């Protein structure tokens, strides 16, 4: 329990952006999918995958988007790279410091040069690489698309392979010759090829073995330090997120319910859903097993979102107002934001970074 868990400067009203160097600024993003049935293609159901999401990524920063499957985090990523056209809201992207462009409504032709500055890393390294192309061709493809002369391509491919810790001889081989971790490195090299300003990584390590996962996490951190990349990191694994992210936005049923710096979110969660997510992570210490999980049931159907706070049917702190009114996302001056009627009064349990030292016999890495 934390006694100082309440933010003191909560103010209602629209989300404010006062930061100087935002690479990406998403405001009030909405994405609805219509399910059409019958001869006249009448809309029978609307799936509100994303309703009103705002987020900002600053230069060199990693923002993690976390939540259960079905919460809309992948939809947000797809709208940002404009694989899907948003239903509403704006997405402004600025690759360099001065030219912010709203990419939410751009035509495909106008999108092309911008897409090179934002690249995606996929979850499954087996299905995201073309098996008929050599690794060199895969990495060179975005270079060809951006008009890099053929003479420079080979040198650049070599440089990228070295950057991701692969032998340069890999360029002439096909993806099937490589393990999952090596393929994910190739995918990262491809994403880095057009010198992007923003990387969107959708669960980039969840398909990998534990020992390989650690290598890829370190690689992403190292590359980010070297290239000053901004990153949107989507994951449901809160242990992984703790290592890679500077700030975290927690999503539930298409809305952001809490946003805070990584340290703050883990030590002093303000939303009951964040508390539940943190408590659900296995403790990795056999002497601490069997804690009671403060969360029951499943995430609701996004075509039939509960009234009031969408989380109230699963929330153990829910009261009458939670069933009626949708809580607004209130932002404090320090950037912390929470959408909960009871955020001021609740004292939620986080994960201490000091009181829980490692219980393993093995020595911990010192850096």
């Amino acid at each position, binding site marked *: 329990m934390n006694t100082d868990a309440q933010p003191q400067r909560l103010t209602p009203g629209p989300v404010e952006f006062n930061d100087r160097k935002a690479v990406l600024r998403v405001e009030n993003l909405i994405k609805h999918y219509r399910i059409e049935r019958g001869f006249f293609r009448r809309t029978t159901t609307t799936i509100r995958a994303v309703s009103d999401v705002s987020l900002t990524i600053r230069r060199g920063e990693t923002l993690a988007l976390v939540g259960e499957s079905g919460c809309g985090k992948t939809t947000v990523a797809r709208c940002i790279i404009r694989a899907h056209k948003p239903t509403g809201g704006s997405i402004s992207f600025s690759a360099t410091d001065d030219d912010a462009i709203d990419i939410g409504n751009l035509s495909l032709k106008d999108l092309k040069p911008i897409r090179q500055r934002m690249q995606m890393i996929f979850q499954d390294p087996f299905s995201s690489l073309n098996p008929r192309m050599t690794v060199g061709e895969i990495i060179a493809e975005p270079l060809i698309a951006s008009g890099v002369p053929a003479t420079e391509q080979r040198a650049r491919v070599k440089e990228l392979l070295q950057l991701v810790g692969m032998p340069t001889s890999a360029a002439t081989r096909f993806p099937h010759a490589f393990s999952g971790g090596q393929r994910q490195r190739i995918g990262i090299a491809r994403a880095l090829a057009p010198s992007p300003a923003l990387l969107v990584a959708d669960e980039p390590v969840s398909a990998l073995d534990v*020992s390989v996962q650690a290598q890829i996490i370190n690689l992403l951190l190292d590359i980010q330090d070297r290239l000053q990349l901004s990153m949107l990191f989507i994951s449901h694994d809160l242990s992984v997120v703790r290592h890679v992210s500077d700030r975290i936005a927690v999503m539930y049923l298409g809305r952001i319910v809490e946003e805070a710096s990584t340290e703050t979110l883990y030590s002093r969660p303000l939303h009951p859903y964040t508390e539940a997510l943190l408590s659900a992570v296995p403790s990795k210490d056999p002497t601490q097993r069997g804690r009671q999980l403060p969360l029951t049931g499943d*995430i609701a159907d996004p075509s039939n979102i509960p009234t009031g706070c969408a989380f109230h049917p699963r929330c153990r702190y829910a009261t009458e107002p939670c069933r009626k009114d949708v809580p607004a996302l209130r932002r404090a001056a320090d950037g912390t934001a929470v959408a909960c009627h009871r955020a001021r009064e609740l004292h939620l349990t986080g994960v201490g970074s000091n009181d829980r030292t*490692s219980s393993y016999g093995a020595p911990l890495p010192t850096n």
Partner: protein
Amino acid sequence: MNQPILSVKDLSVQFRLLEGTTRAVEQLSLDLFPGKCLAVVGESGSGKSVTARTILRILDRNAHVTSGEILLDPDTPNELDLMRLPSTGRRIRAIRGQRIALIFQEPMASLSMHYTVGNQLMEAVRIHSGVPRDIAFAKAVTLLVEVGIPNPAARMSAFPFQLSGGLRQRVGIALALAGEPDILIADEPTTALDVTTQAQVLNLLRKLQKERNLSLLLITHDLGVVAEMANEVLVMYLGRAVETGSVERVFASPQHPYTRALMRSMPRIDATPRERLATIGGAVPHPSNRPAGCPFHPRCEEKIDGLCSSSIPQPVRRGHNEASCFLVQETG
């Protein structure tokens, strides 16, 4: 300690492929005790799933068990070596489901899309006990209640694709319980699930284990799940057991360099910002390219030149743990 309910002794399994022979499991022994949970931990290619499938005798045709015994109720008058039974015979089929049941990683693999949940559960109940339809229906509803599915009577007529991943896994567990088994093999039962749903399913397995006195063989790559569930741990690498012992001992003082490295490379929820993880160099080799000597030596930071690359370390007893490593000194 009391008698194990299931004992695997010196099991070796090979796959004969066009490219050559792959040794998937080598000289593996394990004991599962009644009412306890044994976790088999390993990365992909470690042979943990092959072990589970060998126990149930549901391996593919190109698999060959070159040695080993799988003893059910060892050292009792009912002792039965499953390896001696024909894999398609009546006797092994009676053991599958009624003594040993399997829970899959992706429950859709064990459920048909074309039949309702109720239909499939009733089929399982009737195959195992031969009761009439109305009794089977009541039994199926009871099973759904037991695995914590809300509104079970309505769910009986639902198709598996209409359920969420968590509910589907609960149906998969209900299906496994239909034959009243006393041994449950769970192959990565929560890997496909969200962390919240994972916690719910683990709680359910723990509850069932207590209520039905089930023995659980839990196959996983996630040391967090092991810490939550296991009494005993068996760490596998490339088809071999590298370390075994009680969960407390293995987590408190891992003996094998692989176990230690695996624990260090786990992301931690109490990490400092941008903290790098300790890594194990390289990747798990394909089982068909097994290194000579200790299978872990090419990735081991503590390997002894000349020794680890030439001979295979045998298990060394250290307290209640066992580790297969030349560095481990035997103690009482």
